[in-house]
């Protein structure tokens, strides 16, 4: 029953998407309100059908209905219901359906929110989203076909990939990342619609910005959770490995961050508007490239699915989208009427305008560096036939100076005025933050910290805090000057300018992340310890006592766990239980590290080998890792604050950051 119903729903969703796309194009070309209304209705119908199809496969997964191809492929009668439910995104076919589902829901929300807007633009935007949906929908209905019927149905299946069963984060990291990744289709569609209609006005830009901030928040959170998953599950003591698929999520993040900055220049100064649209388009193309990287099996990565016919089809889609975007840009960009911001004026080299432009350029250079490193093994293989891999040293050498440059621009940009800054103004604005930064670096150096990059990061971080704090204080002070009570002024001041507030909160988050990354990568300790039961050892100020090893048998896996008592001096920090898990489907042992999260540093234990007689663990001590997660969350919060509408009656027209 489920295979038949599932396929019927997919076909219904595809039919509605195709009809909606045609209606959208018609609305776009003829400016027809009626066609736009049809496009909206059909989009909602398509979203409903894809949502039901996704629900249906969830039912099949949880009920272990092995007559459904996808369940037979990755389900297992011993898989607990929660893991069965999240295994929708643990393999290729299910993940493609999930892609289509999220895109359909986004398109549905866009359709609902676009009521009453200009039909041509809405029509084009819906048509583009539905075209992308059609591609993914056709893949799901045709090539990857999770709903195919298996007859006779097997009585059991192999169960999902052990690595994906190992941690609760698997339930939230992929959906969050997908919300960001797939969500980029909406700003992309809006940019294409602006180009197609030849007009970018304030209302469309506002809507574009609001969508983009949400998508950016999800993308950031998704990348962060991915790092966290890698840290908590893979047992190598790190959170970022420059794996091709990690890079695939970082690439659109970089260009999309560049877009958010160029959009500010467009709104405030009337410049970089067309550049902003190009950056959105590039960001979306990078998500398609990233999906190709994961799905084609062409890249060597911890995430990659095996080679499948989807690879060439995806490359075809990527090529088509690339060509379409280049032709659209070439044909329409000169005709684009920009109706946002003031008439473009000149700016001097020393101005906020230049700092923003430089920010965009550095972010693009960062993206180009990562892209080059990611595709270089393929380039090398194509030219010489040999195999190489590009690893951490390349990325670190190349990106650390770029990161330092970005931090420097986060001091410079908000400190300088728009248009032109005189030498006196520049000095007055920059002296306090740079002075504080210098003092902080000096203090750290006196305290014995001698790594130049860490000192530079600390100095810039302190300077950014001063600059951003000063900007936010200005908002609060304006309210105080108006006579608001002191306890209300911060709220009223910040609520009156959510964009500026959000931007500085996001900067604060980035600063926390930067400091955390520089500390955790510069001052990491690791060692291998072998202990017998009852024995203990002292390492880096921690006393680790191996209590015992035991086995925990669950239906889907057997875990051999090592129990460690951990003390810092005389203080009891509890028991850490790293384990090795053996899954029914796989002969390999999958380790689950145990992490003691502390504010200053993490103690991380990963079992190498364990039995009743002894245990060997790799121990890592990393400062600042908790701050990385915290900083990421602060950045996400900043983005969401910036997406809020300015508070009505706050008494002051918002001046954007």
């Amino acid at each position, binding site marked *: 029953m489920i295979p038949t119903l599932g396929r019927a729903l997919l076909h219904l969703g595809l039919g509605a998407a195709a009809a909606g796309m045609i209606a959208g194009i018609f609305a776009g070309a003829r400016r027809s309100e009626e066609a736009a209304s049809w496009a909206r209705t059909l989009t909602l119908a398509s979203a409903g059908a894809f949502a039901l199809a996704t629900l249906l496969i969830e039912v099949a997964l949880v009920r272990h209905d092995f007559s459904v191809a996808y369940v037979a492929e990755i389900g297992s009668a011993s898989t607990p219901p929660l893991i069965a439910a999240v295994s929708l995104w643990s393999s290729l076919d299910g993940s493609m359906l999930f892609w289509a589902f999220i895109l359909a829901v986004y398109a549905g929300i866009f359709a609902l929110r676009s009521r009453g807007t200009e039909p041509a633009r809405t029509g084009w935007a819906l048509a583009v989203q539905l075209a992308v949906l059609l591609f993914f929908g056709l893949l799901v209905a045709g090539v990857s076909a999770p709903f195919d019927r298996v007859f006779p149905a097997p009585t059991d299946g192999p169960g999902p990939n052990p690595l994906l069963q190992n941690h609760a984060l698997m339930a939230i990291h992929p959906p969050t990342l997908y919300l960001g990744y797939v969500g980029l289709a909406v700003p992309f569609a809006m940019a294409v619609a602006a180009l197609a209609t030849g007009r970018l006005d304030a209302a469309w830009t506002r809507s574009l910005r609001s969508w983009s901030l949400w998508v950016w928040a999800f993308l950031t959170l998704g990348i962060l959770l991915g790092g966290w998953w890698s840290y908590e599950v893979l047992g190598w003591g790190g959170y970022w490995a420059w794996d091709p698929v990690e890079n695939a999520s970082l690439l659109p993040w970089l260009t999309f961050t560049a877009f958010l900055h160029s959009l500010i220049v467009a709104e405030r100064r009337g410049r970089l508007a067309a550049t902003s649209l190009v950056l959105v388009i590039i960001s979306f193309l990078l998500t398609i490239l990233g999906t190709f990287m994961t799905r084609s099996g062409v890249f060597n990565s911890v995430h990659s699915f095996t080679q499948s016919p989807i690879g060439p089809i995806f490359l075809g889609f990527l090529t088509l989208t690339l060509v379409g975007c280049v032709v659209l840009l070439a044909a329409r*960009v000169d005709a684009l009427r920009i109706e946002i911001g003031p008439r473009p004026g000149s700016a001097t080299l020393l101005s906020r305008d230049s700092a923003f432009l430089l920010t965009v350029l550095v972010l693009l250079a960062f993206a180009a560096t990562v892209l080059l490193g990611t595709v270089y093994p393929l380039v090398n293989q194509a030219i010489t036939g040999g195999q190489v891999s590009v690893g951490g040293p390349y990325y670190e050498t190349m990106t650390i100076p770029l990161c330092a440059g970005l931090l420097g621009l986060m001091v410079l940009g908000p400190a300088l005025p728009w248009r032109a800054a005189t030498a006196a103004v520049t000095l007055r604005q920059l002296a306090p933050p740079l002075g504080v930064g210098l003092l902080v670096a000096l203090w750290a150096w006196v305290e014995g910290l001698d790594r130049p990059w860490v000192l530079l990061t600390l100095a810039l971080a302190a300077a950014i805090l001063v600059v951003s704090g000063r900007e936010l204080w200005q908002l609060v002070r304006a309210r105080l000057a108006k006579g608001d009570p002191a306890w209300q002024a911060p709220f009223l001041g910040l609520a009156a300018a959510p964009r500026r507030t959000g931007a500085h909160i996001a900067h604060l988050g980035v600063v926390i992340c930067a400091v955390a990354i520089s500390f955790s990568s510069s001052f990491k300790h690791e060692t291998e310890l072998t202990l017998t039961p009852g024995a203990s050892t002292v390492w880096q100020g921690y006393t680790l006592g191996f209590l015992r090893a035991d086995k925990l048998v669950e239906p889907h896996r057997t875990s051999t766990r090592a129990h460690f008592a951990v003390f810092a001096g005389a203080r009891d920090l509890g028991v850490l239980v790293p384990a090795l898990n053996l899954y029914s489907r796989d002969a390999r042992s999958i380790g689950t590290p145990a992490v003691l999260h502390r504010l200053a540093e993490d103690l991380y234990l990963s079992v190498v080998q364990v039995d009743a007689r002894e245990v060997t663990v790799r121990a890592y001590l990393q400062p600042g890792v908790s701050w990385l997660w915290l900083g990421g969350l602060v950045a996400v919060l900043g983005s969401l604050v910036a997406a809020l509408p300015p508070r009505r009656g706050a008494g002051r027209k918002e001046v954007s950051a």
Partner: protein
Amino acid sequence: MNWKILVAGIAICTPLVWVLATGFGHDPHAIPTVTLGSKASDFDLVDLSGQRVHLADLRGRPVVINFWATWCRPCVAEHAELQAAARTYQGRAVFLGILYGDDPALAREYLARVGSVYPTLVDPAQHTVVDYGVAGVPETFFLDGQGVIVHKVSGAVGAAELTAVLAELVR
């Protein structure tokens, strides 16, 4: 039409698509084996208990050479499969372990605990590792009676693959 954008766009996209397309047909996980199909390099080594083993002396029977280490998780995982196969093919094929980047004392202690029906050789200078082009452990090489490497497995070897290759070799 803005020709500059068109030309620049195509100039950037064409090589990118070309490079991506060339990736098909290559398995990025495969490690090239230069030694496959060629005569296995000879060695004369001492095992953990001090017995000499000279590969050339084993000519006439298939040989399975497993590079391993105690610190390597997949090696530990495949140990039982290799032992079972060695027992099954006792007298018809020779099994040899070669220690890779590990302390012989640790290996001796480990094997005393888990048991082994075939010797593990110690190669202090690790010349065999270079001769066989071992990229990491475990790697298992299958030699026919003439000493030619006919099959290689990178990563833990499964029972099915062991049986299939050995059945072919002893026929």
